[in-house]
């Protein structure tokens, strides 16, 4: 029973971190229908940038974080303006491939500026683990979970009620029709990339507080793909719920199944769950189904 509690708490908190990254993906997808393959690399870049601001230049924490957010906004704008905008109205797969090129570029940039490849952020959160019953959980995880929930709330409200949010969703449905309404889609795209970059930055800061900055962040970023799919590509609710599901599945499988199967079953079980779920709900748990009328 003590084990179960530990696995559950670890699973949920770890999963919330996945959710955090996943929401950045959903944001871009929801407004422009582009799958951002450079997500993990962006997380890496912002982690390093935060490191640069806090550890290398020695700015006060609050100022450093403000600079990071400003940089994220700027980078989001740059990416949209100079990489994606020229490709508006081109086949969607080309836009996906362009994010792949971006991924390589960002990866190189990180190696270029911070060639030693692994480092730690200054402590932003208290270190002492928290005990819940018999289970132990690092405080950083609880912070990450809290931030996840907060962002989820903010984004959901924004997309549901704000004029820009509704227009973003409309753009995902039909770019050309949005343009025909005289709406500047470019502004919508650049807004969503700016937000997504800020989310990647927040995710990066939290994740690198947990496990340090290294290339592993990119791979964790990729893990959030499966979270996104399970939850539904266009659903923040899906992302916030699927993250803990994946985290739970991993940890329960890791805890109870490893003895009966090969090691590493923990990494595989989420995929098996996703495949099963897809047969029942092809558009993820909360994704909007594609509306088809012939």
């Amino acid at each position, binding site marked *: 029973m003590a084990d179960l509690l530990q696995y559950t708490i670890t699973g949920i908190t770890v999963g919330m971190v996945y959710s955090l990254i996943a929401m950045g993906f959903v944001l871009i997808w929801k407004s422009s229908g582009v799958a951002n393959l450079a997500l993990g690399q962006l997380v890496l870049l912002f982690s390093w940038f935060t490191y640069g601001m806090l550890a290398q230049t020695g700015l006060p924490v609050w100022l450093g974080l403000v600079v990071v957010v400003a940089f994220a906004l700027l980078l989001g704008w740059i990416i949209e303006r100079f990489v994606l905008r020229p490709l508006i109205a081109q086949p969607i797969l080309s836009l996906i491939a362009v994010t792949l090129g971006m991924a390589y570029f960002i990866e190189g940039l990180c190696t270029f500026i911070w060639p030693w490849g692994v480092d730690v952020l200054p402590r932003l959160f208290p270190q002492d683990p928290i005990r819940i019953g018999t289970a132990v959980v690092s405080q950083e995880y609880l912070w990450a979970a809290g931030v996840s929930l907060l962002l989820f709330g903010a984004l959901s409200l924004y997309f549901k009620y704000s004029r820009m949010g509704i*227009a973003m969703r*409309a753009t*995902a449905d039909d770019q050309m029709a949005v343009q025909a309404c005289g*709406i500047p889609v470019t502004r919508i795209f650049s807004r969503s990339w700016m937000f997504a970059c800020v989310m990647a930055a927040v995710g990066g800061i939290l994740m690198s507080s947990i496990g340090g900055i290294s290339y592993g962040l990119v791979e964790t970023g990729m893990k959030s793909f499966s979270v996104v799919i399970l939850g539904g590509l266009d659903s923040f609710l899906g992302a916030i719920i699927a993250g803990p599901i994946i985290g739970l599945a991993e940890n329960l499988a890791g805890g109870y199944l490893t003895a009966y199967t090969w090691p590493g079953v923990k990494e595989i079980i989420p995929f098996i769950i996703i495949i099963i779920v897809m047969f029942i709900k092809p558009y993820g748990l909360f994704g909007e189904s594609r*509306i088809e009328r012939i």
Partner: protein
Amino acid sequence: MLKLNNIEVTYLNVIRVIHGVSMIVPDGQIVALLGGNGAGKSTTLKAISGLLHVEVGKVTDGSIYWDETRIDEKGAEDIGRLGIVQALEGRRIFGHLTAEENLLVGAFNRSNRGQVRDDMDMVYHYFPRLKDLRKNTAGYLSGGEQQMVVIGRAMMAAPKMMMLDEPSLGLAPMLVEEIYEIIKRFNREQKTSVLIVEQNVRVALSIADYGYVLENGRVVLDGSADFLKNNEDVKEFYMGLSATGAKKNYRELKHYKRRKRWL
């Protein structure tokens, strides 16, 4: 007043589809742009609304003026802000949004919330049916209702000129008449000029003041709606009526084939 001055449109730098079209849409009037498939009607509309670049096309010659402003080199948003709004062909609604959200998207560029509210009521006044459906996901509405949403969305932008691309496409004749009736009313009451692209010539001319017939990227015939309605060629080729005005008898088709005058 919209004025097209001998424009040419080329796609992909290679395929020229409009070979010099000139036309005028006077303020407050309904102008119909008629023609068969591939005549270049939709392309002309996109040239006006600035959406050509989406399909890698551009206006390679001639000019388009909106009042005194030259607009053929402007982007879609700028043109939209001037008050020219296009409803695309094929009921391009935002399927995952509710009907009301669809309408709100149309009012994106307007900051006065009170006026937007009022216009929303105006749209519901023209399309009472939408009021009941406003919380429904637009993708699941019927074809006619979707077309209403699309036209309503264009109305929400408080346009000076509204361009409609084949609003009758795929709708039942009853519904077509209903929608056209509403367009006519909207034009009369709001003093908005309307440019309608239509293959259904009969219904288009029933509300239009003036019409242009497009074929192979050229204007081949233009005139007032009455003139066109009574033109033998238009009757023969676009309305399926024989010279006597009666419904054509397909059994006699072989014996006598009228040649288009302009070919």
